[in-house]
């Protein structure tokens, strides 16, 4: 089982849990398991056509999954998945 850390703004959609243990051989499977268990999370993490939103950064332990095998990144028991939103902006219109 891997553990997915739920960012505080999204805990209202995970039964207020700060972390959720999910089965899955890959990151993609674990995230799919997460939104299957907590469907209200799906629209915040995925677009309507099922792609992970561009501003959602996913870490497996200390590594950004983009620099591993992305959603195909293999997981082992005890791995931690963290979800971090991109933070950007600026005064330009």
């Amino acid at each position, binding site marked *: 089982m891997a553990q997915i850390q739920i960012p505080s703004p999204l805990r209202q959609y995970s039964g207020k849990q700060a972390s959720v243990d999910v089965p899955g051989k890959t990151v993609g499977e674990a995230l799919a398991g997460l939104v299957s268990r907590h469907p209200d999370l799906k629209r915040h993490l995925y677009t309507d056509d099922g792609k992970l939103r561009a501003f959602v950064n996913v870490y497996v332990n200390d590594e950004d999954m983009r620099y591993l095998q992305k959603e195909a990144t293999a997981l082992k028991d005890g791995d931690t998945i963290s979800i971090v*939103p*991109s*933070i950007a902006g*600026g005064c330009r219109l």
Partner: protein
Amino acid sequence: MLKLSKSDYLALRQHGEETYPHECCGVLLGRFDDSGAKIVSRVVRCGNTRADSPHNRYNIDPRDLFRIEREGRERGEDVVGYYHSHPDHPAKWSTTDLAEAHWCFGRSFVITSVEKGKAVLTNSFELTGSDEADKKFVDEETEVV
């Protein structure tokens, strides 16, 4: 409501003065109290990765966000908001600020106007809503203690 110490308030304003004419940015760590007010316990400076347009855009490296959030969690702190500066521009959220704010509902976005190198106004806005379709910023009272 956002509550922060005078030293933290001055620190985030000073960051904007130091990076002028570029936008500064950083993370606010702390806790949410029972009323939903955010109590800041730490201001963490970040770098602005928008080297292509730093005078009017900012981006925090996700690796920094991940590290800051993890270290905060180990100390029992949560991310309660973010701050950035607007060089020679009002301390008010822009359409870009709103467009780039994603599901951090309940967190504060603190903006400081820095005019000719001097921090002028610091305002805080809370991101409210439930998803991309209805998100908006609302003015938030700031208490400096």
